[in-house]
């Protein structure tokens, strides 16, 4: 357990991060962020994709230089990757041509140790993380869980003061992730690590509540801290605890209200044309509405509850909920989702009915789709290049988000048969049979 007065390990203050727009100006992805990680705590950064949480972690690791603001590591400005800071990557980032042992030794390269010292320390890290027997294996021979253990061993072998973890469990299956999480918490709780503080990025609400002492919730566009939640529960924590549930529900409520607010704000600027669309296929929406309309929910559910019932992780649930809200098939409020009248009709229609209803809502509530359709209607050739619209989006959204939004718009429009898109020529056209 930590207390708020203990020594700050790393302090990020007034961090701004801008990318460059295609038109040249700065596009903010992080604005005015203050984060302090104190000795003894696991701090979680929680947010939707595109909230800049991974960028923030890389700034703390010295891998990216912020556009503005200061990073103090143990009181001194951080100029780049520093001794005492180690990173665990979402994709493991192991060198496939090195054995487990050699990969772990990589964490000691910078120390310039004698090779037998390096070998001894690497072996003890391998031992600690439960990899003994696998030291001469190559990463491709290992399962995902074992690979991430190598990632942990490589990070821990240099006895880092600060451990940075970038969604370390999200590439693993549920069971493996749970085992590895527990193993890590055991090591941490037993004070077997030299590590004094952990900063962890995640999009999984339950994982954050399970592991962290403190959680910072990030809002998107530009990323900023919208809430700080303390988790005063003792370790090991029980998912079935009422107190645990309360915190999870609270975070769901914060995230949904942020989401609805953000969607509202986006629909007011630029006639809603630069609205970021949630990354979800149109066909999923009908299926989800059907599940929500059926018992035991009868059209209304708490997000945390339906996530558990449908075993949907929160990062998969949020886009669906956001899309239903955006298209006014459902209403999101304080962590609950409620089908609207149109949503109930959607849930009970057959395929053609669904498509018709979806098309109507798409035209009314997604200005981007309506705009493309209008341009196609007005043009004599009924065709227009994708770049034209994507370029406008990129002026307000980071490029990956702009591309994703465009892909979602195309998927929805194809489902609604609103217009056709040819990926080879990258043009939109009005559907005349062939698409």
């Amino acid at each position, binding site marked *: 357990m930590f207390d708020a007065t203990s020594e700050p390990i790393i302090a990020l203050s007034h961090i701004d991060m801008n990318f460059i727009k295609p038109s040249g100006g700065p596009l903010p992805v992080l604005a005015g962020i203050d984060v302090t990680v104190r000795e003894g705590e696991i701090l979680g950064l929680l947010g939707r994709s595109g909230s800049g949480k991974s960028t923030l972690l890389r700034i703390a690791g010295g891998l990216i230089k912020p556009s503005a603001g200061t990073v103090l590591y143990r009181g001194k400005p951080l100029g780049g990757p*520093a001794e005492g800071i180690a990173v665990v990557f979402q*994709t493991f980032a192991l*060198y496939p041509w090195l054995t487990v042992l050699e990969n772990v030794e990589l964490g000691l390269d910078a120390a310039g140790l004698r090779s037998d010292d390096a070998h001894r320390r690497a072996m003890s890290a391998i031992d600690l993380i439960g990899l003994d027997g696998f030291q001469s294996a190559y990463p491709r021979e290992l399962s995902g869980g074992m690979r991430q253990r190598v990632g942990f061993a490589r990070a821990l072998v240099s006895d880092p003061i600060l451990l940075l973890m970038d969604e370390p469990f999200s590439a693993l299956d549920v069971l493996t992730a749970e085992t590895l999480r527990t193993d890590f918490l055991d090591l941490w709780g037993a004070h077997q690590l030299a590590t004094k503080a952990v900063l962890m990025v995640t999009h999984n609400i339950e994982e954050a509540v399970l592991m962290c002492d403190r959680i910072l919730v990030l809002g998107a566009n530009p990323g900023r801290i919208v809430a700080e939640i303390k988790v005063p529960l003792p370790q090991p924590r029980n998912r079935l605890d009422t107190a645990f549930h309360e915190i999870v529900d609270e975070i769901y409520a914060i995230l949904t209200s942020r989401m609805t607010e953000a969607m509202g704000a986006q629909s007011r600027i630029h006639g809603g044309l630069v609205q970021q669309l949630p990354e979800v296929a149109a066909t999923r929406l009908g299926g989800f509405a059907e599940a929500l309309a059926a018992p035991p929910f009868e059209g209304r559910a708490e997000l945390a509850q339906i996530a558990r019932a449908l075993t949907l992780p929160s990062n998969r649930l949020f886009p669906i909920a956001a899309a239903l809200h955006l298209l006014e098939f459902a209403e999101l409020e304080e962590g609950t989702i409620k089908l609207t009248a149109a949503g109930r009709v959607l849930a009970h229609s057959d395929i053609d009915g669904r498509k018709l209803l979806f098309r109507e809502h798409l035209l009314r509530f997604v200005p981007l789709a309506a705009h493309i359709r209008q341009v196609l209607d007005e043009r004599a050739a009924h065709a227009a290049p994708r770049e034209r619209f994507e370029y406008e989006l990129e002026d307000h959204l980071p490029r990956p988000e702009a591309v994703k939004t465009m892909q979602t718009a195309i998927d929805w429009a194809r489902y609604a048969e609103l217009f056709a898109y040819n990926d080879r020529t990258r043009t939109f056209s009005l559907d005349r049979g062939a698409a």
Partner: protein
Amino acid sequence: MEQHAEVLTGGTWRQPVPGWRDLVATLLVLGVVILIGIGTHQMVAPFAVEHQPAISLSPAALPLYTLRTVLRMLAAMSASLFFTFTYATLAAKSRRAEMVLIPILDVLQSVPILGYLSFTVAFFVALFPGNVMGPELAAIFAIFTSQAWNMAFSFYQSLRTIPTDLDEASRSFRESGWQRFWRLEVPFAMPGLVWNMMMSMSGGWFFVVASEAIAVGDLQIALPGVGSYVAKAIAQRDLAAVGWAISAMTVAILLCDQLVFRPMVTWADKFRFEQTAAQIIPRSWVLDLFRRSGLIAAVSGPLGAAIRHGARARFSILPGRTATGLLPRGVGDALWLGLASGALAYVGWAIVRHAGSALTWDDLRTATGNGALTLARVAVLVALASLIWVPIGVAVGLRPKLTARVQPVSQFLAAFPANLLFPVAVFLIVRFRLSPGIWLCPLMILGTQWYILFNVIAGASAFPSDFREVAASFRVRPWRWWREVMLPGVFPYFVTGAITASGGAWNASIVAESVSWGSTRLTAGGLGAYIARMTEAGDYPRIALGVAVMSVLVIALNRLLWRPLYAYAERRTRLD
């Protein structure tokens, strides 16, 4: 090095009791060392252009000639590797160097290789007067120019496509530039580099043979080697000697493949980036032998440790891409580009001034006219070769057993220097009084058509079997099957093969469009014949003109046809 890891981790340390493996491995190592010693000793012997040792046509002289030919090849390969590691690294790490180096590489790549030879031989001979080193270096340099560019490109491309997560891992663990180079960059680039080295080696045999018997104007040099042996055999109309040379070269290529490349490909397999297990695991008896021999392990163990230690040393060669400087980025770039284009303008002006006095517009017209003729030939030949080899390649590639047998043969044929076979073809043309304008053309693609074959075989054998089963279960008709199933499936592979074949045909045109048999001389016209004729006459301005026209044609062909085709093939066959 493999064994060393076992030694380190303890447990499997074996007492080095000599066994049959040790004996064979030791003999192999000693044999190679002794052969290299003999060959290199001769390469620094005194030499005078006026009193050259005569080339003997006796088959007994051939082993030594072959050895020297092979050594030239290996020397050029080492030089190419060194060039690759320095040039490509510089281009990948410095944005400003990249702006200049990559376009230069692009041009160098399209200059016909034999064009370099005529310009450099005089320089190298003057560099080491009275020593055979001069002409040797000129020949090695010519081979180098046939090998280095694609290797450098491949390495550069790999450096630019290092996955972000590995790059971040390397940076966050604060590897020094040196550590990063040997631990991340070279291993990541290794599979592509080894593949390109094999391609280079295949192409190199052609030029090693062509660059031994050098005749530029009055300068006549015949370096002891298979190429000079064949040149002499041609001059004396000795078909039997040509036969001996062909067999000697066959043995040399097979040995190089077994002793050098097979082990290398097998070893490089561990650098594959894909995290999944490979479908076909390359094997090499030589590597197995060395890995299992306790004696070799004991000797190479400390060596491996030293290499590892060297790779882990902490000094920095080149920092990563950083945008810090005294000047703002835009101003610095403008200055740099201005400087580079100034230098280019000066060189251009110097060439025009120099060439302008020697060349007329008529020369340009002749050269471009000849260029058009050769262009037409290359186009027809690549089309013909495709018509023949694509169906055969598909038929072979879809039968795994046949593939296992045909693929090594086609790769061997691609590596075999086709110019050794020219005398046989010329003999037949002279004998049956065929028209050289038509019958010399196939020689241009004789050596490079196999690239089409083995790439198509590779494509067809990599074609997913479920796609084939789908086509079979829906009883897709033959015409549709070709057009919509198989051809799109092998298309990217075909394009790769056709690019190599077409590039090779351009290069070969210099030796294929104009050939001789004793005193009989056959000429097919065309740009290759033009360059060959000017080289013989030592007419430097016109050699330069011919080479320049060919480079422009090759670059134009690459830009306007092959690159768009390649991009199209990549885009079309992607599923995600």
